[in-house]
């Protein structure tokens, strides 16, 4: 069932724009090249595109969220490693682009 949304960490995003090519059904670019993302739940048949866009963001700025608000971080053995790579929280990678 559909219970995922896609969100962008707008601080981490530097506007590569790859997501809009990989998931055009859900993501378009604004006047400055930054992604505008639909807020609706992603239909299951499109979820594979959403995951593809998240995985290919060079800035690791896209996140898949479940409806309950949990972030869609990978589970299992590599989970802890991935969490360390993804800056989040008050100290996390909040740097201005450029």
């Amino acid at each position, binding site marked *: 069932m559909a219970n995922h949304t896609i969100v962008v*960490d707008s601080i981490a995003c530097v506007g590569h724009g790859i997501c809009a090519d990989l998931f055009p059904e859900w993501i378009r670019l604004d006047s400055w090249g930054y992604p505008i993302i639909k807020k609706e739940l992603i239909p299951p048949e499109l979820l594979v595109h959403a995951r593809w866009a998240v995985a290919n963001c060079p800035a690791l700025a896209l996140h898949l969220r479940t409806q309950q608000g949990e972030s869609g971080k990978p589970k299992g053995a590599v989970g802890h490693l991935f969490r360390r790579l993804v800056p989040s929280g008050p100290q996390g990678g909040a740097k201005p682009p450029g």
Partner: protein
Amino acid sequence: MAGDGDRTVPAAGPARLLAEIHSDGTWVSLAEHRSRYALPPRPRREPQSRLIDLIEESGLRGRGGAGFPTGRKLRTVSQGRAPRIVVGNGTEGEPASAKDRLLMSRLPHLVIDGALLAAAAVGADRIAVGIDRNNTEAMAAMREALAERAAQEPLPVPFRIGGTPPRYVTGEETGLVHWFNNGPGMPTFAPPRPFERGVAGRPTLVQNVETLAHITQIVHNGADWFREAGTADEPGTALATVSGCVARATVAEAAIGTPIGHVVASAGGSAAPIGAMLLGGFFGTWVAGDAALAAPFSRAGLSPLGASPGAGIMVAIAEDACGLSETARLLAWFAAESAGQCGPCLYGLADLARGAASLAQATSSVGDIADLQLWADEIEGRGACKHPDGAVRLLRSAAVVFAEDWERHARGETCPGSSAAPTIPVPVPPPIWR
């Protein structure tokens, strides 16, 4: 104007906070403060639900602008893992606000007691208060007040005063937490919000300093007393900073729900017929003069006008002033205050400010004005914080309130007010973030 220390105390309703202020400009000493207020309980690891219940019963809402129920916030933070941290927000980055600096520089012990009570309520083992480092009067009074305590009644928990960078978004709660965590005073991506993971990764209560002062009074006088002023949903009094086209810029105190015209009257009334008011400050909304003066000073009362009291800011501009020129200058400030972290804010606000300036100078083409509308739609809701949304809201309210001027400027004609001196002083932020 907002930096002037010379503000007198008017009577726009029951003065509760301001009633304690010395008219000679000195701050209230610990001895005098203790003659009215009992020593707050020592903060412990366990939250004090009795205090939280009391604040919930009082119906107090945050006075920093968002108006979130304080009791609910205390409850949420108290349910996080111990130990927790209390952060007082005295940054007051809103250029048209002066109430927090007045409170901190004249009644520092009221604020400090409020922070200690909040710490006891949520079970915090540390307190930090952020104050704009250029705000030397408030910094000095708060520091001296803490030193006075150290001598007479040692503080039960470490209490730090932080001189924050003089930037607007440093006062956004994640920006303030980021700065206290030794980062730049820039907002961070949320969630996690500070109540989940804030200073040092601990659940953190961030409260405006006026809110803390109200907590001290509520604990002393009770929730029923607090509810004697204000409305059922928004009880109590609030400080208001009145400036612009008024006889004298001032900080007033009014029961929530008081007509805005009465609050303006406490600032000596208008200096000329009021054309429009900027309610809520730079991060607020334009409202036509008559409607604004008649409206109640409350969230519920201003909501039908698409406005909010914000941090209690009212700026009046005269009938013959050019609201679009004022708006264009404010938008330039918004662009300059962008932390530059989010693309739509960094580039979008710069474009928005340029577009508004060209409209104010009546040099826009039809396409330029269409661009303004497109950019406003694209920018809204796209920042990590609400800073870009504030710029969009301001521009949209200008388009409604100054609709006639907008049409005229769009046709390439300026109005007489466009070449007049600005009513609203706009600061130029320095490139400092640490």
